[in-house]
């Protein structure tokens, strides 16, 4: 049986750049409305259109964590345990999409947990929570590395 995992996808053609998604995400992670650096999801305006930067639950960060603070839950979502984290930023720097976030003044990072708050907050329906095959997205740090390539 293949495992599925929930992941946020973006429909740029529908986005109007309200950033309600970011504010909704801030409420989840920081209990505030600031968005921006307090949001795991980021909407970036580029060449007259919009791009989303957000975690796709690939799980590469799991291998990077020296204290096993990052785990994949049985539902496939990758989560970070703030109590175990020692703030080393390895996961932040090694994330291929730069979507493991750090807020100013903090060393414990945060990330998208596919909760869907952003999807619900978007008035345009530009975000969607879908099920994808885990095997299609999973990544590990070393598998693409070898010796003396």
């Amino acid at each position, binding site marked *: 049986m293949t495992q599925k995992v929930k992941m946020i996808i973006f429909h740029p053609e529908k986005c109007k750049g309200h950033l309600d998604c970011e504010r909704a995400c801030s409420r989840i992670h920081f209990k505030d409305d600031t968005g921006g650096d307090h949001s795991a999801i980021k909407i970036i305006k580029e060449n007259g259109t919009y791009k989303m930067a957000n975690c796709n639950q690939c*799980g590469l960060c*799991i*291998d*990077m*964590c*020296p*204290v*096993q603070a*990052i*785990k*994949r839950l049985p539902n496939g979502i990758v989560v970070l345990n703030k109590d*175990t*984290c*020692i*703030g*080393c*930023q*390895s996961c*932040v*720097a*090694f994330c291929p999409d730069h979507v493991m976030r*750090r807020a*100013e*003044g*903090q*060393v414990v990072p945060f990330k998208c947990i596919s909760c869907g708050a952003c999807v619900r907050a978007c008035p345009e329906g530009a975000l969607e929570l879908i099920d994808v095959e885990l095997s299609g997205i999973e990544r*590990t*740090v*070393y*598998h693409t*590395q*070898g*010796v*003396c*390539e």
Partner: protein
Amino acid sequence: MTECFNEDKNARLIGRSDGPFETNNTKHTWDLEKLRSGHRVLMEYEYEMRPIDRGYAGRFLRVDLSSGSVEEVPLTDDIKKKFTGGKGFGLKQIWDMVGPDTRWNDPENVLALNSGPMNGTTQYSGMGKCLSTTISPSTNVICDSNAGGYFAPYMKFAGFDSLAITGKADEDVIIFIDGIEGKIRIETAPFEETNSHLLAEQLTHLYATEDTDEARQKVTVVSAGKGSENSYWGVLNISFFDPRRKVARLKQHGRGGLGTVLRDKKVKAVVARIKGFTGMENNPADIDKIARTGIKHHTQIRDLDKSQCNMRTVGTGNLVEIMDAYDLLPTENYRFGGFPKASKIFSTEFYKLFTQVIPDGCWYGCTMACAKTVDGLLLRTGPYKGQRVTVDGPEYETIAGGSNMSLWDPYWILEFNFYCDTYGLDTISAATTIAFIMEMYEYGILNKERCDGLEFSFGNADAIMQFLHRIADGDQGEFIKVGARGARRIKDWLIEKDWGDHQLIEDCGMEVKGLEYSEYVSKESLAQQGGFALASKGPQHDEAWLIFMDMVNDQIPTFKDKAEALHYFPIWRTWFGLTGLCKLPWNDTTPITNPETDEPAKVPEHVQNYVDIMSGVTGWDIKGSDLFDQSERVYNFQRSMNVWMGKGRRMDDIPPYRSMGPVTEVEYVSRKDRYDEQLKDKLGLSEEVIGKMSIPERILLIKEFRYDQYHKLADAVYCRRGWTPNGVPTPEKMKELGFIDETEMLETLQKAIDSDDEKGLNVWGGKYTEGEDTPSEKQRYWE
């Protein structure tokens, strides 16, 4: 031996690194209650728990085992300013507590384990190093050695920047620093193992507050082993519990016999424990600055390491193939710089054995992650024969120690590595000494009878392993006892017995100041010859690892460049030992724009990173040159202590000829074109004249030329450092560095200079022809 011991690959990763991982190691069950029942508390001391103040705990801890007393010494601003931390603190503690005649096994000798202000930071790679200092049995001057593992940060977070152990206990004890309860205890420990791989595991379980991996990660153990008790090569193993492998892994303070001193003091282990850890314990002044710098550097490692040093995948072993290609890989006691069989021990071979997909930093947050392991290694000899174990490493120097002994089988190198570690023996000193023994064996100066029955032909793994086991067993054979004290003592012994040509013995035994050489062939690198022989503690590469810069990257081509490099780099590299840092993240990955900078060898962007982190931790307003100043103070203080202890002159900085050129005909002939060419180019001899000379005649001419070059280099370096022509730091220099109140030190130096004057030693060592520049016009340029 063709059997492949790990071919079942059971020790490789099963699934993902958050999933189950099986090392396939032999499992031990310990009767912890029984171990605990042997612990009698000899002394307990309560101290006040305080938060760290911007990187400093603010006090030293002194434990006197003879009197069973403990003292807290406040860290003053003056000490911070003059010594910064780490090695500086260690030197200061020793300076305060020993005399110039104190020897390694006197109770007064201090074993100091030191942290530094940036030590324990998790946001940047390589910030967990412990820097330890003591009077070394090998050299009888200060030796400093650094290692990863959790001890230095945990000691600091428990409340102390530096621990000085003095005196001797009557029976085996453990020194326990309890950062949870705020207590120091000295406890007897009769039932625990002595060898480190077992002792570290026992004590990690014994001192963890509960039976969980999380609790075990909060405990760290410093230990030596049975070998340390009977050898001058004793190492300190520092443990770090790996939650994935569930192994108390070990990093080594390898050089200079620190473990020998630990066991001489009858300390079985030093244990530190902390309550929790968040990565913010240093209470830094500006965490955002640190985190931003860290992320930038981690990202560089992510993007570039693979195409640069490949440290994340194979560790420092990546150097083996490079050193072999450049004729720098020590082979058969440094006679040769490579070998056709070398490909058998290239990093590609060890890669097949290393466990991957696990973060391998020896401190949290190091993404350079060079601390590779082989898990589930089946041992073939010794007391643990038939058991499967985790081997930390091997690092480059251990692999190259293998080639130096002509050991071309990765499994034997791993076995050697494992037993050296658990017995508490330095792989470098052991390999360099054994390689020397093997060469003497080949010449018949040593033989089976003289070696207590061991057949030390090059490559004989069985003899090598038996030697280690017999050292650990406390074998009283004359050879075993002398051999375990290293190359200098073997030279003295061979010369005393008059078993061979004295000059040959002196030339081939690779030691300076009594410490064995690290594993690089420096024959063609004048800069590295100086890097080894001028190093304060003896010929270890960490002080001046210039060989790559000189021979591979060709960054210091002229004589002046080399002298300048020998001023700058030893001092700069010292800085890492002051702050509690590892050097590798400085230049084992470099920014892509680095070659376009003014001084690529210094990696300016990374120096700026260190400025940012140091100011981020301490809140100091500093610039790059301030880091250099911090280091120059300590560097000169250490040399001055050498002078004070009677080993800080030119005569103590003379390399054995094997490190400088071909000692034997076979070496000359193996690189005949190179040496003949040099006779032509450097000495102006015609081909005809060279052709008429015998090989020994050619060797002599080259030897004379090279020693003169070396002395000229030493002249230039001493002068550049502000030292006399005989290598003594001048009082003027020391005052300039801020040592105004250290009258005893200043007087010692002046006395040394006056005494050198009387003996006519304050003169340049090189033979300068008319018109050739000496390092300064005035001989007494400092006045």
